């Protein structure tokens, strides 16, 4: 019997190290990321599909894909 995971993959930003360049915003196909007040990038978990494009694009390597409870 197959076991289905109840977690989902979502992008997470390290707020402390984010330089708010906006590269992830441009890369996101779901428009799930925005820059908050010019300080850090914020991921809308309801829109994020965990594709990881933002991870590839982030020049500061502060975005990661993490398993979160569904």
């Amino acid at each position, binding site marked *: 019997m197959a076991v289905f995971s109840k977690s989902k993959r979502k992008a997470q930003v390290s707020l402390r190290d984010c*330089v708010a360049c906006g*590269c992830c915003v441009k890369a996101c196909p779901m428009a799930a990321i925005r820059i908050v007040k010019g300080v850090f990038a914020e991921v809308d978990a309801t829109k994020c599909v965990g594709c990881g494009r933002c991870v590839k694009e982030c020049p500061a390597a502060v975005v990661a894909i993490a398993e979160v409870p569904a």
Partner: protein
Amino acid sequence: MKKNWYDNLWIVSLIYLLLGFFNILFAWAGLFCFFIPLVVSVAGGGKIYCNRYCGRGQLFALFGGRFGLSRKKNPPKFLKSRWFRYGFLIFFFTMFFLMLWNTWLVFAGARELRQVVKLLWTFKLPWHWAYHAASVKPWVAQFAFGFYSVMLTSTVLGFITMLLFKPRSWCVYCPIGTMTQLICKAKCGKM
């Protein structure tokens, strides 16, 4: 994805860099790249300049991304550390004010105009072919040479980090980006 007019601002950056090879006085136009991001962030626009309108960032994205010149590796930890970003900001502006001081010396007649572009704050490249003007005062030209040195140096640095790491690695330690983020942090009390 829909393309907007501001996605083509890399053309402006490229033209700016090329014009400096023909007439150094065009370097003055680079002041827009200095002041617009700062004014926008002070006025409450956040880092919208970096996020949308930075032609230089777009240029790196184009060469590193579409043209495939970037290794697309994560940068070393030191590059994104705060001490490096803030340290580079201080160093960059120290050199910038030194350039202003040299302009002042030419203005005051204490020094003659030097028709060179200083690359990476070290290498003096002869650039006399781009200076045709007896029509402007020497200090105006001196500032242009100095400012173009700043712009060319930052482009070269950005290009090197684009090749070695991700296309827009320059954005991580760009002094203007660091400063606008500091302004934004100060405005929302997150210093």
